[in-house]
């Protein structure tokens, strides 16, 4: 049996990778991938936690929810990215800086 700490470490590592991707990538798509990584890290955590809830399996249910929501959010995010591309002719977030003071 794989101890639960390993899942958590893997989740944390995935989350950190996701954050790293979000913070450093110059491409909006890659940022979106980073976000997906973080979502998946959280899903992994939910699944690990679900081991202690064998009867209701709330963790797995939540994991399904998260996957659904992720799919929805990716759809929205892609739409946004498409529009950004139309307006700025680029999807580099450094160039989309119109909201500064």
């Amino acid at each position, binding site marked *: 049996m794989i101890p639960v700490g390993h899942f958590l470490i893997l989740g944390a590592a995935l989350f950190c990778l996701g954050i790293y991707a979000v913070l450093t990538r110059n491409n909006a798509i890659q940022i979106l991938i980073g976000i997906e990584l973080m979502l998946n890290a959280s899903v992994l955590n939910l699944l690990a936690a679900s081991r202690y809830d064998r009867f209701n399996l709330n963790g797995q249910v939540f994991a399904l929810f998260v996957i659904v929501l992720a799919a929805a959010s990716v759809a929205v995010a892609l739409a946004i990215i498409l529009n950004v591309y139309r307006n700025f002719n680029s999807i580099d977030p450094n160039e989309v*800086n*119109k909201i*500064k*003071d």
Partner: protein
Amino acid sequence: MAGNTLPADQLTAFYFALFAVCFPFIGFLKNLILPDKFNDKVSIYTLAASVLCCLVLLLYRFNEPEFVLQTTWFVIGKTVITAGIWLNHLSMLMLLLVSLIALAVHIYSVQYMEDDERYPAYFTYLSFFTFAMMGLVIAPNLIQLYFFWELVGFASYLLIGFWYEREKASSAAKKAFIMNRIGDVGFLIGIFIIFNLYNTFNLTEVNGIKTAEILARNPGSLTVASLCFFLGAMAKSAQFPLFTWLPDAMEGPTAVSSLLHAATMVAAGVFLMARLTPVFTDSALLVMAVVGAVTAFLAAYMALTQKDLKRILAFSTISQLGFMMLAIGIEAQAAAIFHLITHAFFKCLLFLSAGVVIHYMGHFHDAEDSPQDITRMGGLRKKLPFTFAVCSLAALALAGIPFTSGYLSKDAILIQAFEWAEGKGFLFKLIPLSALITSWLTAFYISRLIFTVFFERGEAAKSQQLIVTSFRPSTYEPKSYWMPMLFLALCSLFIVYSWNPFSYEHSWIFASLNKHVAAGSLYHILIPVVVNLGTIGLIYLAYQRYVKNRFSKLSNRGFVYKLSFHQLYLDRFYELALVPSVLFFSKAIFAFDRYVVDGVVNGTALFTRKISSISSWFDGYVIDGFVNQTARISGIIGHYFRNFQSGRIQRYLTLMLFLLLLVCLIFVFI
């Protein structure tokens, strides 16, 4: 106060007097505001109206009781200063005298000043002067009197300096003004003392019964007050030693000299003395008598040697004013005023004649020579017959020959002087004796003038004379001169004053002014005889000396001659002793003002400036610095935080992450 309790006749008289005074003023105002070629006519007609008023007043009011009508002028504290009119014998006589003399001079001036470029201004000044003098004689209180007294002084300044482009005339005007100021100070102090003693400025009250009471209580102050008033009169009436302005004032036009310095202005001092008689204490009166006698004698002595026609007349005026002062001093006010009136007419006439002579000579003199030098004249009898006639008459009046007005008034003074000295010590006798000698000197110098100017002289003198070949008498004696001069000549005769040519006591003027009846004495016969014998002898002597040229050994070089010619060197004395000290004093005051007063002011200013600059530095560097530094620091901080708002979404996210971590750490470890 105004008139509702007064009888109607007094009110009428009041209005007549008011109009008499105001007419010349109206003329003056018109001439001042709207000067045009009618200035002379305006002046003459307003003055003629004024003469008419005075005449009516004198005819209808002269024997009525005197009265004062006054109204409030202004109020200081509880003291009411009034202005008004005081009509009594003295003021009515003076009103008529001033207006008549002024009218004669006005009419004479039309021709005399004809060629002057400031002809209209001349009449403006004359009107103003006449107004001031007439205002003076009616004044019922000291303040009003002083007010007009100053106006007279100012008007005389304008008229003496009328030809101000001449250096001598303008300095003579200044001299007259400054010397008069000395007297004015005395007058003013006198007024203050009088107010302190009597608590009123009203002349009628001052002259009233209170004097006896104050005399008993405070004789010293009253004597000082009297002497202060006398100082004022000394300056105005050119008494020794303040007379030196009068000969210099002859720089003015001759018509002006006749009005100011013979007839009216210089009479103001004597008039003041006559107005204030009851105030004077015995010791003050004695001083007046002595000063009068000294002035009369010295001025006559100086007149003996002068060469300038007008200066001789000026000294003669001073001498006669000395006589009047003497009369005031011996309490013979009636005689003083009587002499003032007679003297006004004949002296005015003498000056007007001198004006004719000067105009005549002016056509022949060369640049260096003055047309007024009598040694250059001679034989004018035939050239100017009319002038000769009236001038001789005036000269006889001045010398005091019987049947002239001068005889009456001069003998009045001489006789009363002798009566006054009767029973007093030997020193008191000197006063009437000096007056007697003065009247002889008068006869001599005036006959010298007449003989030198009008008679042909001997060969020795002829070399200096200017001989005139072609002339037309009408050019120099135009008809417009005749009327005023004939009128003045008439007034130099006894008949105007008294039906009896030998007795001054029968003269209506003297009788109206005289308060106490003097007992007849031997002097009434003795004095006129002695005086006139001496006078006639001296006239004969002068005739021999100046026409026949005998006694020409009488040297012109002696000390006595020089002393007389240079007016006792008084001018020199003033110039060397008094003027430098006054100038030094002024300079000292100026230096004090410059270095101490200004120094304090400038020092304060400097100090304030230093303080302000320190304050400004503090303000600029400390207060402003604090404010600016605060603003700068805020700016720096704000600028720093602005950098966070870069618009880069990943930055924001990084920041959020770190802050989140920070919060977590804080919660974990604390």
